[in-house]
């Protein structure tokens, strides 16, 4: 079971999104995208708190929420592991995770008064570019 380092995560201060929510979103994205495989060991609360210099209670809160959602599972004596679902989530669910980012992009596109076709063409080009 690959052990992921706490440096997998990053947070940004000064945004309207609380830190715990940023962590939750990050874990969700990584799990849905496959970087976090079921059964992988998650770094401990303390490790993440140390690495990011955030309050451990915040990390606990994020982990608690993820556990409730079923993304993570608590193993007795082993900390948190990624919940086993065996399969990748269906693409429709995964696509929903992209919604917040796309909504932000759409807002900006509207501010720039671009028509949808131009925007979609640009997005397609970007997607084809190297990762």
């Amino acid at each position, binding site marked *: 079971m690959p052990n992921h380092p706490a440096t997998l995560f990053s947070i940004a201060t000064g945004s*309207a999104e*609380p830190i715990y929510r940023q962590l939750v979103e990050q874990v969700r994205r990584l799990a849905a995208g496959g970087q976090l495989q079921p059964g992988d060991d998650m770094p401990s609360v303390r490790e993440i708190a140390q690495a990011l*210099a*955030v*309050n*451990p209670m915040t990390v606990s809160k994020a982990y608690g929420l993820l556990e409730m959602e079923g993304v993570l599972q608590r193993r007795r004596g082993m900390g948190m592991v990624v919940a086993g679902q065996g399969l990748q989530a269906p693409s429709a669910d995964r696509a929903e995770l992209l919604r917040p980012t796309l909504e932000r992009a759409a807002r900006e596109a509207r501010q720039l008064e671009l028509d949808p076709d131009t925007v979609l063409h640009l997005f397609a080009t970007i997607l084809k570019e190297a990762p």
Partner: protein
Amino acid sequence: MNTVGTPIVRLSSVAKRFGEHAVLDGLDWQILPGQIVGLLGRNGAGKSTLLECMLGLRELDRGSVTLFGEDVAALSEAARARIGYVPQKTDLFDWLTPDQLLDYFKAMYPRWNDAKVEGLLGRWGFGARLRRTPVKRLSGGEQQRLAIIRALAHDPDLLVLDEPVSALDPLGRRDFLRELVDGVIERGTTVVFSTHILSDLERVAFDLAFLKEGRIVLQGQADALLENEKVSLEDLFIRTTRDAASEVAP
């Protein structure tokens, strides 16, 4: 002994005025054990005065303050041993070297974590040579780091920090936050700190309290406050502490 739920710090109707100016006016505030509270307020709002009154360093005009259940004007030895404080103005005894300063205060406390002190001195840039240099020849940042080490050295249960990182560069602040997370919060210490560096507060403070016009006008869990208002901490600060008279079109 504190049972969970009894406030470790309780201020009731505290009033303090300097001449004609009422700095604290009927202020009520409670801090529960294990809370990490960030105290926010504009310059000159009285954060330092509030913290000094909280520790019994200034006489109150009205009201009462209790720490660990004891009246703050006459703290017992046991209570004093559980408090750590970093004042805003680091006027350390500048004729002493860091080693001498730490030895001096070590004699004052029954419990002193030598291992922690050595570790912090090593990690925070105090080599053998610097430890033998009189404080007056240290930079502002080094003096502040020394003051923080001194406050942490006796493993306090209540840590009060008044702008503790104002003179530190970002790396110094990150080291300090790490130490708070690792050595202080993990142990269940109650932390009250006032700072203008909002990014630090966002990372570490779980609760916030805003001081305005002599009272705590807003307090609660940081996450809840931010989510309710849907703004960043900076905007929440400006919104809460802005004078009604100085309203500018956003």
